[in-house]
């Protein structure tokens, strides 16, 4: 399976990463090599094998629905590129 340049741009859009036309050619070459490696795995017979999503067979723990954290918003927002009145600023999305 070889990825087309259109495939590369479609994946890049899904991943929200801008890729120039020149970069796409280089990315395509390297991804083709990576998928050649990955595709080796697809020939393995896995009929009836239960997927293993995790290294430990464990059920996720539950905790009581109680407040455990204090308010850190001032500290956390001090790390943001743009804030205003306690809100994160982003470009306008609704006209």
């Amino acid at each position: 399976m070889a990825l087309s340049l259109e495939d590369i741009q479609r994946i890049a859009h899904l991943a929200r990463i801008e890729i120039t036309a020149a970069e796409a050619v280089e990315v395509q070459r390297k991804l083709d090599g990576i998928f050649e490696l990955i595709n080796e795995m697809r020939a393995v017979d896995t009929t009836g094998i239960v997927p293993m999503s995790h290294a430990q067979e464990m059920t996720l723990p539950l905790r009581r629905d109680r407040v455990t954290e204090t308010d850190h918003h001032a500290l956390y927002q001090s790390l943001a590129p743009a804030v205003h009145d306690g809100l994160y600023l982003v470009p306008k999305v609704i006209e």
Partner: protein
Amino acid sequence: MRLHASLSELSRALAERNASSVELTETALARIDALNPNINAFLTVERERALESARAADRRIAAGNGGPLTGIPVAHKDVLMTAGVKTTCGSRMLANFVAPYSAFVVERLADAGMVLVGKTNMDEFAMGSSNENSYFGPVRNPWNTDCVPGGSSGGSAAAVAARIVPAATGTDTGGSIRQPAALSGVCGLKPTYGLCSRYGLVAFASSLDHPGPFGQTAADCALMLNAMAGHDARDSTSVAREPEDYTRALSEARGAKPLSGVKIGLPREYFGEGIDAEVASAVDAAVAEFRSLGATTVEVELPAVKHSVPVYYVIAPAEASSNLSRFDGVRYGHRAAQYDDLADMYKKTRAEGFGAEVKRRILVGTYVLSHGYYDAYYLKAQQVRRLIADDFARAFERCDVVLGPTAPSAAFKLGAKVDDPVEMYLNDIFTVAANLTGTPALSIPCGFTRAGLPIGLHLQAHHFDEARLLDVAHRYQQATDWHTRAPEMAR
């Protein structure tokens, strides 16, 4: 006092007042000043904070409240959040990010009284096997500065190898502690999944990420693990179990055959093609040494292990593509200066903030999770992951420890593999299975190439069998001196 001594020797010197924490810390800081321009192992040096912690440690020791790690300098990989300190993950995305809280393992080692001297360089977001993917430039191998130190925890491995700090932390998602430990000639342990909390470890692949220690010896890794292990409700995969003393077996007197009764499994898959001849002969010599220490060896089969690297390069990028979606220029980190709208801001921010390898892995992960491909790639990889885990479960019915090389070759030259991601990925061929299965594994030095580069031996055990794994490595180190050799710059 020089920082070539083991943690227990340093601890004894501190307790007996033959050294102070301030002296040890000043030594570490002076060594950073002298050596970091050559090896680029440190991204941040916390001089004032370190000396302040050292003075507090000295007071604690004087008051009789010191523990085995109190007052000893340490360095943390820059993927571990450290409150009030820059935590960059080796990325432009977080080049100016100051962590608002500390990782569990960072807190634990601070509580134990260790003195943080700085944060170490790494492959961007822990993705790489050579430390050449750092936005802040590559780390160089202290044994030969034309060579890579391994990755992704290359800065921590190099800092311990150069005897700048006696111990450091790292993280291991596919070999990122063990492979740099091997290439830099130090010891590195990846504990069982769930033993050390991932809280505050900036996530790469959550089902595969593990924090762990680097040290000069297996015994030092055991002391570090004592402090780093433990249950933490803030990591839902952290395992609640009784605390253990991982050093408990190390001092037992057992005579000339200390490993009598220990069965070492030798997978034929780890002794075949594709391994450098000097690495293979060093590993063979280590097997002979284990036999002379009383261990028996048994051949085991891991037929599915050959699929580990392909499986890993589906699962890890898939999880990474999800985890790294948080870097969008809104809440923290880099934001592009110019953009048209929100979507464009995301795209430009991520295009500028991430390096080439991180982007490649996000793209691979996005593709294998996308509509129509999920079953063929992600689900398939999880099924083959099960086959690999089943192989190890069968092998551990017949042996206590599985042995092999850590990496197929010793350290390679900077630039040698940067243009071929697949060749770079194959460095992880012997290490990734322990991440897929969650079993503990460590790398210890077992020899040198004719060119003077260290060779690593890989030992892997059952889940939660760290005490035995470390004991087996410790007994080998009692009988050999590979781990005591230091590079020229550290002599």
